[in-house]
């Protein structure tokens, strides 16, 4: 596609790997080819793309807009409508705070506020250094241990606001090690 030629130096981050845009395009084109016939194929294409890359880089959105012949403004309209979609890369660690009823009433809301304050990001955002992303979840099935916070695959139970720093520590230490190396 035309615009991509000028963006060869750009790359996208996917989980831990760095991918060149032009390497990703053929995969996106496959996704588009599979979904094209479907009614409202835009959302499924966006979902698959986000599953693949972890987020939706703007050059990729432009590519999707051109391929599906849907105005870029409309594609952006859909991406900004659903909080599920993100145009910034996910952090290295994803923190999910359960907002199911049990967790919510037993302090999940306060824990979320404290995390948000500590990390200086809102829900759906990623810290500047790309280390943490903050999200909310719907019931992790551990209501007895509410409120629950998941960091990646680790489940943290009965979390209190005051324990936030402690909870994040192991993940932060690892960041320190990386910096030194």
């Amino acid at each position, binding site marked *: 596609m035309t615009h991509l030629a000028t963006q060869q130096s750009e790359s996208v981050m996917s989980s831990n790997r760095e991918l060149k845009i032009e390497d990703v395009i053929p995969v996106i084109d496959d996704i588009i080819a599979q979904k094209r016939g479907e009614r409202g194929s835009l959302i499924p294409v966006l979902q698959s793309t986000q599953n693949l890359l972890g987020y939706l880089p703007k050059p990729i959105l432009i590519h999707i807009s051109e391929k599906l012949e*849907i105005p870029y403004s409309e594609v952006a309209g859909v991406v900004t409508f659903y909080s599920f979609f993100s145009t910034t890369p996910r952090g290295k660690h994803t923190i999910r705070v359960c907002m199911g009823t049990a967790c919510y009433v037993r302090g999940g809301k306060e824990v979320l506020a404290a995390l948000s304050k500590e990390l200086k990001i809102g829900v759906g955002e990623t810290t500047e250094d790309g280390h943490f992303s903050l999200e909310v979840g719907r019931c992790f099935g551990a209501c007895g241990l509410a409120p629950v916070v998941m960091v990646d695959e680790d489940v943290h139970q009965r979390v209190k606001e005051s324990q936030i720093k402690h909870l994040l520590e192991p993940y932060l230490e690892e960041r320190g090690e990386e910096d030194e190396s």
Partner: protein
Amino acid sequence: MCKLTINGKQVNVSDNSTILEAAKSVGIKIPTLCYLEGLTPMGACRVCMVEVEGRATLVAACTTPVQEEMVIHTNSRKARESRKVVVELLLSEHEGDCQLCERSDDCELRQLALELGIREVRYQGEKPPAMLDTSSVALIRDSAKCIKCRRCVQVCSEVQRVGALSAQFRGYHTTIAPAFNDALESITCVQCGQCAAVCPVGAIIETSHIEFVLKALDNPQKHVVVQTAPAIRAALGECFGLPPGTLVTGKMVSALRELGFDAVFDTNFAADLTIMEEGTELLTRLRNHFILGQETRLPQFTSCSPGWINYAEHYFPEILDKISTCKSPQQMFGAMAKTYYAQKANVDPADMVVVSVMPCTAKKFEAVRPEMRSSGYQDVDYVLTTRELGDLIKMGGVDFIALPDGEMDSPLGLSTGAADIFANTGGVMEAALRTVHAVTTGRSLASEDLHIEALAGLEGVKTASVTLSGTVDAWSFLEGKEVKVAVAHGLGNAASVVEYIRDHPAEFQFIEVMTCPGGCIGGGGQPRFTTDAVRLARIGAIYQEDEGKPLRQSHDNPAIQQIYAEFLEKPLSHKSHELLHTTYAKKEKVTP
């Protein structure tokens, strides 16, 4: 046919009508806001709610189809109250400063509030975060005034097939904007201003040049010349309450003199010049095609409409070599004013200010393109829309209606009827064919009134063909040849034509494209509100102007003959190329 009752009146309409159309057919007005004539109704604003007997809730008249035996009340208490609530809610979110707003004269929201008898707003809404976007050279978006009716979205995507605007974010944060609420300047927008033309409120307006023009007029050191596009004379009267289709050429000239311009000239002069250059260019390409068999730059596309040029540069780079290299009449005028006229009038071009009055917002963009400085200066300094000229005249305290008719100055004020019709769809083509036919056959077009019937009217794409017979010696290779032409207005129609010629490359030789529906008479800078009826009335005035001229073929214009004799030598001469022609460059289709 479908039989129904509206407000006690029997109505017969076709089955696929909406309630709104049915009511209109018997003279019942239902207030609307998001509805745009001729486009798919969106049902977004809920202003047009009416009561249908037997239905639990009110329905939107613009989207609801009629049904046999329907009984409708458009003016019941329930319907009136619902409309009031909707408009009050809009007002409660609206950053309203009517006294200071550009749109206070023709604002549909203000008008609607008046008509519905709203004297207080019973709701208090928190005003959503707003953004004033002044990044574009042609347009300003003020989201604080936006009522999210989405007319601009519809025009930009459905009519212009650009799709620069759409709803971004959700709920309370929803905003009608470019992708990710980015600045207009940073995305692909062709600057046509059709969004500004349909916006019911002051949320999209042109970037004003009024202050710059006043400053130039106040400066005794400056020689300020003005040119008016052909479409202005058929619409300016509307700014002063005259009905659409009133021709005000003479009053317009007098008003410009009253405002203090040093010379009042006509873009029409440059339109005649365009025909000389563009017609010769076409004949040259036809010669290469028929004699050498190697011309690839056919069909030739017209180049007078800057929104179309932007569109082609972004969307159809593969046809850029087929577009006429002629600058638009506005820019030809600027280049001639600051060279030829400057010499003649003994004015230093550094002290000359060229002001254009255009029906168009894209002309503001065109004037600052880097290619448009062939006089050694910016060829056109400031561009006023028709609406801005109306405002300037009012600010100057000029009683427009009472003005006597004035005459344009010589030499850049002289023109033929062929130049007038540049204002409407089909006109540039007709003007070109008048000259091409006369030059190649020595005779004028066959039709008595010089019109080409098939190119008139508001059909989105029109085609015609002219067979050249009895050609003079120099053009005998065209003997018996049929020249097939197409005309498109509205960029969506232009896109269809370009897509068609991909598969039928040899079908047409010449294609006219105008960015705005109806051509310049329907431009983004014209007085609001432009409906099809208004378009037809303005076109009627333009034809009247053309038919009233003693000379109606561009090559007959004595001032044009003079400029070639004294200055340019001949069409496509070295000097013409330097001053009157330009180049185009491929741009990204979607600029993020």
